[in-house]
């Protein structure tokens, strides 16, 4: 499974790089796939409300043909409805692919994975019913295939397929039920969406407005200039030589039509089962890199910062079991994804995944800057890089003379580590994170920025020379820009006086409550 993940990650990296070269990492739509899918759902809702008022259950194909022929509203709203549904499926599929490639499917994310799959499935069924509503040759083809597949289930006394045989008129009840499903499913999708994001704190549901309106505008323009095709009205007495086929929602149709029903069901169920099993197959042992965060209650001051920063709502404050008057943080290991954001949020360094809390980071930093063996040549710009950053770009920084220090996520980074780097005599420190919407810890770059520049708790202390601490973003496809940015930052650092190396331990603002040796 992990081999497959690596392969898909390489492919994703290539796609991301191409999109970043075109749009820049700030506006890379691939980073926004999930939120774009939600935005498309809203657009579908808005356009669908208009369409449902002009659609006639008693004359489906005639009413849709009339809508399509209306040049003022009907034609482009119908086309926009179609294109947004296509983009919804596409964006949801990309999101699904992205989560798999980045190993964000297992453990606490299992619920989001399963509900996401159900959302995608519901979207496909909803699209199916939408095409049937139009009752053109393609809608009829989909309806026939759906009936053929459903007829294999031993629940209906009369085969559904006979509805479309032509020996009797198709009852309008069929279109009523179809419309009911088409409208009812999005309501269920709303509930699924709630479930999908229920395990994350501060879920981001919509892309930045600039992206939302650009997409809607481009699709609306396409709807006006390239109206969605509508096949000839369904006719059970004719065999259409061709039908318009939707490649987003019905790409499977030509395949299943040639397969026996049992094979289609078996294949579909096997695929669904395989997707549902991904969280189990992709899971990692909850040790080392994947061990959940732990709290050292002796160091916890009850400041309530880590529950606020945790992107997964995995930390709560509970009563202490000693006589101190504060609360103590408690990590729910079932919800913790080991992102380590809490480690960066805790001034007294009392929380974090094993081996990655603030104190562990300081220990690693000491080794990195060679405090034990200080040497003049170690006075290079220090680049603190997220381990998810493109390897080639990290190597490029190293080639440009940077001393690279890796962290699992920049949100994981404790500000005291930065202080130690700066005060150790380095010309400056550059923290290289991922694009904010592509952070596997969800909010790493956001909290880093807040801690460095907006005094969010566990902030970088005022005594640290801010001119020597900078941030930048490493994203696939933005290597040239990253090198240029690093070069400019390094030149800025060079203009500053070289600081004297201090053999200091950073002061811990929230010094742990003294603990007697015998308590340990």
């Amino acid at each position, binding site marked *: 499974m992990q081999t497959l993940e690596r392969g898909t990650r390489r492919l994703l990296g290539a796609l991301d790089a191409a999109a970043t*070269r*075109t*749009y*820049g990492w700030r506006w890379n739509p691939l980073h926004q796939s999930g939120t774009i899918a939600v935005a498309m759902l809203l657009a579908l809702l808005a356009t669908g409300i208009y369409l449902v008022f002009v659609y006639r259950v008693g004359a489906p194909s005639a009413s849709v043909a009339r809508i399509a022929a209306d040049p003022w509203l009907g034609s482009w709203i119908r*086309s926009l409805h*179609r*294109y947004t549904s*296509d*983009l919804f499926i*596409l964006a949801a599929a990309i999101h699904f692919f992205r989560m798999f490639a980045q190993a964000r499917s297992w453990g606490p994310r299992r619920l989001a994975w399963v509900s996401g799959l159900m959302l995608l499935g519901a979207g496909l069924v909803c699209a199916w019913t939408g095409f049937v509503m139009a009752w053109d*040759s*393609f809608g009829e*083809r989909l309806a026939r295939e759906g009936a053929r597949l459903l007829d294999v289930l031993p629940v209906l*006394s*009369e*085969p559904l*397929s*006979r509805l479309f*045989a*032509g*020996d*009797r*008129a198709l009852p309008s009840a069929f279109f009523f039920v179809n419309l009911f499903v088409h409208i009812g499913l999005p309501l269920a999708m709303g509930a699924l969406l709630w479930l999908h994001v229920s395990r994350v704190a501060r879920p981001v549901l919509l892309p930045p407005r600039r992206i939302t309106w*650009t997409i809607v505008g*481009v*699709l609306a*323009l*396409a709807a006006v200039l*390239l109206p*969605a*095709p509508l096949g000839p009205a369904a006719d*059970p*007495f*004719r*065999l*259409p*030589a*061709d*039908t*318009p*086929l*939707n*490649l*987003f929602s019905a790409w499977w149709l*030509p395949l299943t039509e040639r397969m026996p029903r049992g094979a289609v069901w078996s294949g579909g169920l096997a695929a669904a089962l395989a997707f549902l099993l991904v969280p189990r197959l992709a899971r990692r042992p909850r040790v080392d890199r994947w061990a959940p965060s732990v709290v050292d209650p002796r160091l916890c001051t009850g400041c309530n910062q880590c529950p606020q920063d945790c992107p997964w709502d995995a930390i709560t404050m509970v009563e202490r079991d000693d006589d101190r008057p504060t609360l103590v943080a408690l990590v729910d290991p079932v919800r913790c994804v080991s992102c380590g954001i809490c480690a960066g949020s805790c001034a007294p360094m009392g929380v974090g995944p094993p081996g990655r809390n603030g104190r562990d980071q300081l220990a690693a930093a000491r080794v990195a800057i060679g405090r034990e063996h200080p040497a003049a040549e170690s006075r290079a710009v220090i680049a603190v890089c997220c381990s998810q950053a493109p390897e080639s770009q990290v190597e490029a920084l190293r080639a440009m003379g940077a001393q690279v220090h890796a962290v699992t996520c920049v949100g994981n980074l404790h500000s005291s580590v930065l202080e130690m780097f700066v005060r150790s005599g380095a010309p400056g420190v550059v923290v290289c994170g991922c694009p904010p919407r592509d952070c596997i810890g969800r909010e790493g770059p956001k909290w880093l920025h807040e801690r460095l520049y907006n005094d969010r708790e566990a902030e970088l202390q005022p005594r640290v020379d801010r001119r020597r601490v900078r941030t930048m973003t490493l994203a696939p496809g933005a290597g040239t820009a990253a090198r240029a940015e690093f070069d400019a930052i390094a030149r800025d650092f060079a203009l500053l006086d070289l600081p004297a190396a201090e053999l200091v331990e950073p002061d811990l603002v929230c010094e742990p409550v003294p603990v007697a040796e015998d308590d340990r």
Partner: protein
Amino acid sequence: MSRNLGRSIATVVVSAAAAVGIAAGSGVAVPFHAEDAARLRLSWSARPERIEQCRALSEEELALRPEHMRQRMECEGGFATYALEIDIDGRRVEDAVLTGGGVRNDRPIHDLRELAIAPGEHRVRVSLARREADASGEDRDHDRDESGGDRDEDHDDDDDADESGISADRAQRERTERTRRQRTALPESVLLDTSLLVSPGQVVVITFDPARRRFAVVPSLP
């Protein structure tokens, strides 16, 4: 500056291409049926005939049963199965055995099948024949005529009610229901032998007309 302009142009071009891609992928015209394809579609439903042996219960037998379970006639049997044969221009293209739906085969037969047929004029023969021997049907009819007929003509309904506890209405309902079931069931044999002129792309639909109790070509949407 030129770099930004280049990127802006690339952004517009890629976005436009993506929109065109979505519009194109939304309705790709794909071949479905060959231009000269045509179909013969058989689509019909009907109840299979019940083949049963009936006899009139004696007054003593009726008296032994709880009052709510008293029926004048007691029938045992099953449902007929049918041989379906389709010939096109004298060539057998379909040969199937049809049984009623449900676990006990007591539900209607629902038949839907499609056969490829070349455009042009064809002699089409669709034959449906009961597979069970005629003897059972004759026995059944004979029994029914004998027992039911006697009662209709000779018995006083009021007397029936007095002796067996079966009211005249109920006995009549039994007979009516039996007759209705017989009338709506498939006949012993149904045959369509006709010439069809099939045009390219046409689907000729043949169904069972329950009113006329025979196969018929559906001319257009009813």
